[in-house]
């Protein structure tokens, strides 16, 4: 009993810290979202509570931004998955074990550069007067100066770039867990390479895939910097309008409502995707059931 109390006490400092500096401020934001903006020079007031700010945040003006963010979020995550999975598979399965560390480090190196700086790197690359633009025009690939910058496409490119390592790493761990002998056993039982991949590797790597998808989707939805640097007017994302409510419009109540809606949107969309994923795998699960009793 005494051991138990000591051990729980170990977590107490973290509890208190997170409570004071995370839970309470977020709670205050939720509280603000029910308020309003009384006058030009004051930020908010809470004497009259209502859902008006939520109605305002979902008005057609801002609803389009939520839609845009959702589109970029889902498309970006899907692209990260499609682009990153082969790389993770290659490192985990096809690479010589001694070289794996090096390639993993290579994947993480861009991560060790400042997020903002590497996004600015893309701004340089995509500049209409830059060398890439001139090269592509010279080769006849594009008719005029490169027009990707300041569009939704540029934001998509930027977020896929920035979050790709976050997808590759968990996928690597997941594929790594599906060890060689298991795949060999599958082949011995008559499955081809693709069959092995889709019916053995992927289902077993499922937790890792889910982790990767979540690790990318969630920060991507709240992204603010990529949209600011590469997006221009078209790349408006919810993170930016929340920021602008606090930084320029000084309407904390509205900004808080938008922030709460952002969290709800993320949670809801994850729930929907999980439901879809579960529904899609029912027919597969009915005909084949693969269990792994000892995966390590």
């Amino acid at each position, binding site marked *: 009993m005494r051991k138990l109390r000591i051990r729980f006490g170990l977590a107490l400092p973290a509890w208190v810290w997170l409570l004071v500096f995370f839970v309470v401020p977020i709670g205050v934001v939720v509280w603000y979202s029910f308020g309003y*903006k009384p006058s*030009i*020079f*004051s*930020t908010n007031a809470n004497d009259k509570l209502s859902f008006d700010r939520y109605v305002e945040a979902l008005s057609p*003006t*801002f609803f*389009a*931004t939520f839609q*845009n963010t959702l589109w970029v979020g889902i498309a970006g995550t899907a692209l990260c998955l499609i682009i990153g999975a082969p790389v993770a598979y290659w490192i985990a399965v096809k690479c010589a074990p001694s070289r794996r560390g090096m390639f993993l480090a290579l994947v993480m190196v861009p991560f060790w550069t400042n997020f903002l700086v590497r996004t600015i790197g893309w701004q340089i690359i995509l*500049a*209409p*007067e830059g060398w890439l633009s001139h090269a592509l025009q010279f080769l006849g690939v594009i008719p005029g*100066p490169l*027009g990707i*910058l*300041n*569009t939704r496409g540029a934001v998509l490119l930027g977020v896929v770039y920035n979050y790709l390592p976050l997808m590759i790493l968990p996928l690597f761990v997941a594929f790594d867990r599906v060890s060689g002998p298991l795949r060999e056993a599958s082949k011995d039982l008559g499955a081809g390479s693709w069959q092995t991949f889709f019916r053995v590797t992927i289902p077993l790597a499922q937790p890792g895939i889910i982790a990767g998808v979540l690790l990318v989707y969630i920060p991507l939805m709240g992204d603010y910097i990529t949209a600011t640097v590469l*997006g*221009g*007017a*078209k*790349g*408006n994302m919810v993170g930016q*309008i929340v920021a*602008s*409510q*606090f*930084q*320029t*419009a*000084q309407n904390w109540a509205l900004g808080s409502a938008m922030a709460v809606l952002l969290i709800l949107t993320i949670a809801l969309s994850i729930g929907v995707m999980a439901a879809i994923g579960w529904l899609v795998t029912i027919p597969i699960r009915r005909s084949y059931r693969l269990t792994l009793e000892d995966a390590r």
Partner: protein
Amino acid sequence: MAHGGAHGQPPVRVLANATSARKIGAELTRRGFLATALAASGAVLFTACAPQKASAASQANGGPLEDKLSIYTWSDYDDPDLLSAFTKKKGPKIVVDAFNSNEELVAKLVAARGTSGYDIVVPTGPFILPMAENGLLERLNLDLIPNFQTMNPHFIHRTFDPKNEYSICKAWGTTGFAYDKTVIKRELTGWADFIDAAQNEASGKTSLLDDPAPMCGIYFWSHGIDWNTTDEKHLADCEAFMTKEIAPHVISFDSAPGGQIIPQATAALVQVYNGDARTGIAASKNPERWQWVLGAPATEIWMDNWSIAKGAPHPEAAHAFINFIIAPDVQVKQMDYIGYDTGVEGNQQRAEEAGLENLDMVFFTEEQIATMHEGKFTKAQERIVAIWNATKAAAGA
């Protein structure tokens, strides 16, 4: 004082005022020392957490300059060489941060409530009195700014701050646009042409200022309406116009397109301030492709001012800097860098003698100035910000 150590220990020297010293001496046994130390550290901790009057900075009195100075201003609005020259001459190291609009400046100061750390801020005229009334600005001590006497009389004692209690002119300018002649092959002469080009040749290549008032000004100036109107019908029309007719063609909102958009030609039609246009076009690889147009038939005249934020941690340095930067000898360099008239007496003559280029974008004729209208801080302020938000959201759709 030194206290002969009890029990044969070496004497302990303690630095304290007389009364405390006696008390400390009495308690300076080993046990007592421990107890006192604990109490003292507790007191220190308590003081760190004890309620303090918000912002210790008070009026500057001509005391010694602090070692730092923090400026919150518009983008790229001071010659970096002048900033280093100030540090070399007077000492304080300068840190510069930028905002895109007065609303952002106000929002930052209001949110921080004196803890922002900024000393000098640069608001535009109409915002100064409301900011002062809401406790965001410190009064200036003009005794510490003798160079105030050298200012051009036209640019001091303006209606927004008649006694210059809170502000001194930093620069004045106007708003117009620049267009890429290789994309827009006809001549544009005013806001009506701007709107037309935005909807045609420059669709998807238009950039607007990221500042609520001048952005909405496009509608008012081109339709002959006073841009300080509070008429709800006019404001509703403005919102409908901006969100439906203009926003779909906009590729970026930037208050300082001379930094990147014009040199990089990321847009072909750019709403821009005159000095920024001058800088941007000069920095472009082929400046001849750009043409600057003063907003017509009406546009704004704005004046940015040096002010000191409430709670400024380095008020002495702030005053010294303002005095330094409005001195006549640095004006030519500053004007050449930022492209605006800085409001000091004799500036136009100085600039002409120094042979600065494109002075028609810095100094204007009487007829041109007659078309420029000052902005006012009205009760439509929030509505204008809402229109700005809506336009940005519509542009992103």
